[in-house]
C-alpha cells in the first residue's frame, strides 16, 4: 500500500496536470491556518457552429453540443503553504450527433468525476505586494457515470499537475498558470487525450472600502489549451485540438463572501477532424471563506 501511494505521488509530481485558476473562492484565500471555504460555480458552454480544423463549415444536420456544469468546490488550508481542495461537478449535457448520416439527439445528466488537489504554495510578503509560487498535484477520481451513448465521464483515473504564480498589490492582480492532465484509459476502453494549457489573468482592483470591506476587481482572462485526440472508443468528448479563449471577469467581495462572473469567447479553435466549436463560455460562482 505504501509503495502504491509512493508511486502514485511520484507520478502525480512527475507528470503534469491540472492547474486550477478557478480555485475555490479565489487564489489567495483562505491563506490563514485552519481556514476553509466553499464555492458553487455554474458553467455553460456549447455551440452549433461546426468546424473542420479551424474553418467553419456548413452544418446541414444541425450538429450541436451544449453543456451545463454545476461545480461544488471546497478548500481547507492547513497553513498558507499547503491546502487540500475538492471539486465535484453535476453535469447536464445534450448534443446532436452524426450517426450514419443522421443527426441524432442525445442527452445525459448526473454527477461527474471528483477532483482532489493539494496546492502547495511558497509565499512572499514584501510590503506593498504579496505573491506566491504554487505547484498543485491533482487526481481525478472516476465517480461519474460512464454508461450509455453519451456518458458523463469515461471512467478513468486521471492525474494532473499545475505550476502557478500570482501577485497582488493594492491595485493590481496577476496570475499565470501552466497545467497538464494525464488521462488514462477508462471503462469500455475510452480514453481522452492529454490536456495541456496556460491561463493568464490580469486584474485591476477597481474599488475597495476599508470601512465596509466591500470591493471589486475587473480582470481579463486569456487561456490556451491543447487537447490530445481521444481514441475511437471515447464517447464523452469531441475531438482534440487547440483552443484559445479570452474574456472579462468581474469579482465582487464583501467581507468573507466573493462573487465571480466570467465570460470567455473562443479567439482561435483548431479541431482534429470535424467537431462543434466549444462556443462562448459563461462562468458564475459565489464562494465563502471562514
Amino acid at each position, binding site marked *: 500500500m505504501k509503495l502504491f501511494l509512493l508511486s502514485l505521488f511520484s507520478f502525480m509530481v512527475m507528470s503534469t496536470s491540472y492547474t486550477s485558476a478557478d480555485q475555490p473562492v479565489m487564489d489567495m484565500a483562505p491563506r490563514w491556518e485552519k481556514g476553509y471555504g466553499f464555492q458553487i460555480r455554474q458553467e455553460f458552454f456549447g455551440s452549433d457552429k461546426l468546424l473542420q480544423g479551424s474553418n467553419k463549415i456548413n452544418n446541414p444536420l444541425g450538429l450541436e453540443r451544449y453543456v451545463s456544469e454545476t461545480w461544488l468546490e471546497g478548500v481547507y488550508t492547513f497553513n498558507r503553504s499547503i491546502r487540500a481542495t475538492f471539486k465535484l461537478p453535476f453535469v447536464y449535457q445534450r448534443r446532436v450527433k452524426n450517426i450514419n448520416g443522421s443527426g441524432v439527439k442525445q442527452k445525459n445528466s448526473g454527477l461527474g468525476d471528483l477532483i482532489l488537489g493539494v496546492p502547495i504554495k511558497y509565499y512572499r510578503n514584501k510590503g506593498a505586494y504579496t505573491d506566491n509560487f504554487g505547484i498543485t498535484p491533482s487526481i481525478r477520481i472516476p465517480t461519474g457515470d460512464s454508461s450509455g451513448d453519451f456518458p458523463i465521464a469515461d471512467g478513468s483515473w486521471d492525474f494532473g499537475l499545475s505550476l502557478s504564480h500570482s501577485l497582488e498589490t493594492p491595485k493590481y492582480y496577476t496570475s499565470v498558470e501552466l497545467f497538464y492532465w494525464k488521462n488514462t484509459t477508462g471503462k469500455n476502453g475510452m480514453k481522452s487525450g492529454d490536456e495541456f494549457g496556460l491561463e*493568464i489573468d490580469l486584474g485591476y482592483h477597481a474599488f475597495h472600502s*476599508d470601512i465596509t470591506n466591500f*470591493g471589486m476587481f475587473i480582470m481579463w482572462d486569456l487561456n490556451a489549451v491543447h487537447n490530445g485526440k481521444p481514441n475511437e472508443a471515447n464517447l464523452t468528448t469531441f475531438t482534440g485540438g487547440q483552443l484559445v479563449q479570452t474574456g472579462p471577469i468581474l469579482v465582487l467581495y464583501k467581507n468573507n463572501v466573493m462573487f465571480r462572473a466570467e465570460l470567455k469567447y473562443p479567439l482561435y479553435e483548431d479541431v482534429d477532424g470535424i467537431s462543434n466549436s466549444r462556443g462562448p463560455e459563461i462562468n458564475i460562482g459565489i464562494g465563502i471563506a471562514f
Partner: protein
Amino acid sequence: MSNIIILAATLLLFMAIPSYSAHDEHSHDNEKQIHKSTDIGNINVNENEVVIIVNGIVCSFCSQGVTRKLSKLPFIDQSKYKKGVKVEIENQKVTIAVKPDSEFDINEVFRSIKSGGYEPVMAYQIVENEVITFKPQE
C-alpha cells in the same frame, strides 16, 4: 506547441521578478526588541490602539483570517472598528483597539498575524504619552 511552452516559460520568469519595493522587509534581530521612540513618521496612533505594519496585506478578502484571529484575542476591544480591527490595504496597516487596563500581549498579536498568513514588521502603541515600538521575533 513549442511556441506555447516558450511563451509560458517567459511569462513565468517575468512574473517571478518583483517590481515593487515599498515597505521591504526589515532585517530583524532574532530577539524581541522593545524600545521607545517619538519618531513614527506618518503613523497615527491613538490612545488604546495599536498600529501594526504588515508586509503584503494588500487584499482585504485575503486578510479575513488576520481580522478573525486578532478579534478573538482577549484584550481586543470589539466595540470599535469591525470587531476591534481595521485593515488598511493601501498602506499595509492594521489597527487594533485595545481594552483599557487589559493585559496586552504584543507577541499574541504578532502570532495571530503570522497565523493569518502575513508578516508583521513593526507595531506602535502609546503608553503614558510616549510611543513604544515593537518588532516581532524572527
